[in-house]
């Protein structure tokens, strides 16, 4: 047996390329249905876990899927903004607490999520380096953002302009990284968190500039009277918030009208959540309220239908591969006719020859299984990418 195994092993080693092609093709065929199953199952469990941990999401009327995807994954689908007025109304209900979100901007390819510190407590996010943001202009980054951009505490990030041709539009803001989050294996790892106020500054609703009532540079003043000073376009706006200019930053207009993309609402209990949904049904509060788990469930059901089609395809491909494998074995036996005859002539029994050939096949199949197993474990690392590229 040991000798047969040795001969089989040596034979396969001699025909390296052929062996590798066979192992790879059989391995991939074994892996594909199982790997996809794993990807879908893990994606499903990750997505459902994220959705289940988010009790209610409120946003403007429109696609509930876009609303949930934006609120849970910070994927910046073009959803209509709502105002902070709704946030105030929700807080006043006393049924729980709202967490406003504004996810419109990006910095170096990663979404900037404007929120407040309740989000950190709600998601149980832990700071691994530095601290939470304290002042406007500061940001906390997810672990993968830190890793991919190779930045850490005290580095900075500049928000990307919405439109490169709009020179008078949104100003890029240089934000200081004050903290890095511990890895959570959720979309939070790929997000840059700032205070809502920082996002409003990026939007231009708040800004900092020299004090017009005290400035000695008359060239920035267009008109001055007892109650109003009008500046011209020369007025320099700060694009970075520092300790020195923090005092000069101010907001315009009523905070009630400031935009947000959605609100996560955390009810005190199930009853409070039901009462709140009733208020939306009765149109006491406008906008739409959705239960993320239901929206994600619907989204996943469509994916499951695709999974069934894939499974059928894999069964057929697997069957075809088995046939090809059979053909390869048959052809291989015919090619090795002389070799088998030689073995027989030098005294090998028929049983021994079958044992050697059988062991060759066994090694091939086992190696294919090992290859498929390795691929199966590697798949786990691509769950987040799979969710990002194929599901949302």
């Amino acid at each position, binding site marked *: 047996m040991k000798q047969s195994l040795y001969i089989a092993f040596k034979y396969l080693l001699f025909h390296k390329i052929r062996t590798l092609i066979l192992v790879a093709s059989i391995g991939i065929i074994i892996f594909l249905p199982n790997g996809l199953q794993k990807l879908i199952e893990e994606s499903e469990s990750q997505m459902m876990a994220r959705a289940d941990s988010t009790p209610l999401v409120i946003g403007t009327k429109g696609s509930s899927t876009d609303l949930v995807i934006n609120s849970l994954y910070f994927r910046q689908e073009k959803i209509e903004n709502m105002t902070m007025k709704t946030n105030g109304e929700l*807080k006043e209900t006393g049924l729980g*607490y*709202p*967490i*406003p979100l504004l996810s419109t901007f990006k910095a170096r390819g990663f979404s900037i999520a404007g929120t*407040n*510190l*309740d989000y950190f*407590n709600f998601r149980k996010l832990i700071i691994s380096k530095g*601290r*939470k*943001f*304290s*002042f*406007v202009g*500061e940001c906390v980054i997810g672990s993968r953002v830190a890793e991919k951009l190779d930045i850490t505490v005290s580095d900075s990030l500049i928000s990307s302009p919405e439109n490169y041709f709009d020179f*008078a539009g949104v100003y890029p803001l240089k934000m200081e990284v004050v903290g890095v989050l511990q890895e959570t294996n959720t979309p939070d790892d790929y997000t840059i968190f700032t*205070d809502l*106020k920082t996002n409003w500054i990026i939007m231009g609703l708040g800004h900092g*500039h020299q004090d*017009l*009532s005290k400035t000695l540079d008359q060239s920035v003043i267009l008109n001055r009277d*007892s*109650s*109003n*000073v*009008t*500046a*011209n*376009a020369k*007025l320099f706006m700060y694009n970075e918030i520092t300790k020195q200019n*923090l*005092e000069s*930053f*101010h*907001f*315009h207009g009523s905070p009630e009208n400031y935009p947000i993309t959605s609100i996560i609402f955390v009810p005190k209990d199930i009853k409070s959540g039901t009462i709140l949904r009733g208020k939306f049904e009765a149109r006491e509060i406008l906008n739409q309220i959705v239960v993320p788990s239901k929206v994600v469930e619907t989204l996943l059901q469509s994916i499951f239908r695709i999974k069934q089609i894939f499974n059928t395809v894999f069964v057929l491909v697997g069957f075809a591969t088995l046939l090809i494998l059979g053909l390869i074995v048959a052809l291989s036996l015919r090619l090795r006719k002389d070799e088998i005859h030689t073995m027989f002539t030098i005294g090998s029994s028929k049983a021994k020859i079958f044992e050697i050939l059988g062991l060759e096949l066994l090694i091939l199949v086992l190696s294919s299984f090992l290859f498929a197993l390795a691929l199966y474990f590697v798949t786990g690392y691509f769950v987040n990418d799979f969710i990002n590229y194929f599901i949302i």
Partner: protein
Amino acid sequence: MKKLIVVLLSTLIYFACSEKKEGQSINENKVKRIASVNYPLHFFVTQIGGIKVDAIYPIPTDVDPVYWEPTAEDIILYQEADLILLNGAGYAKWVDKVSLPQSKMINTSLSFKDKYIDLEEGQTHSHGPEGEHEHKGFAFTTWLDFNNTIIQVEEVYKALSNLLPDSEETFKSNLQSLKNDIADLHKKMKAAAKKIEGTTLVASHPVYQYLSNGYNLKIISFHWEPDQLPDDMMWEGFEKILASSKATIMLWEDTPLIEVNDKLMNLGVKPIVFNPCANTPASGDFLSIMKTNIVNLGDL
């Protein structure tokens, strides 16, 4: 033998320290931390919450809490508190520039926000396509009208009771006692205001809007500091107002400089200290300071 004694002592010290630490952490878990943005709110928390809460107030005594500029460490104190009490009406300008957990923030004057008093003074500025921006805001010493104070005290009570429902009865009894004291102040303030009814008062600083509104007092405000000498232009402006208003009383947040005091007396104006008590007083507390204020006004 010596070695044995050292080892025994070290072990004893180690266990003593560990026990203390454990005790502290249990204590930390139990006592809820309540942070306030000014002294009156901090005082209300200590009066209503008593030993059931840990009242946090990191603002130094020599700073006006409205214009305090906190450090990142100060902000962390507020961020980690279980409740953050705000005065509302734009008080504590720093709150707009920092990140605090919204669910823990309570605006104690929200229920009377429609009664906030607009600031008369200030300058707007314009630039960009948005046009003119308003920068005036509201008067913020809301507690100088004791009717407002009672509402704010009740809000503090509600917030504490929601946080610690088991201690509600204790809070209720403490609230009643505090409300009685404030009601007494209100009564005395009304009597003192009655005495000077129809008289115009001048004030060193525009902080008495709610006092004026609540007790029907006519107050004209200036921008003078108790520890600074007004320049000639300021005196000139003051005398002009004095001639038209016939004011004989000037309210000060703190005792003015002796030179200012004498000059005012020569002009026939009596300086009276009416301390808004926005920050921790050097001696006494909110109630005793307000009592002294009312006595100062009533003694006229």
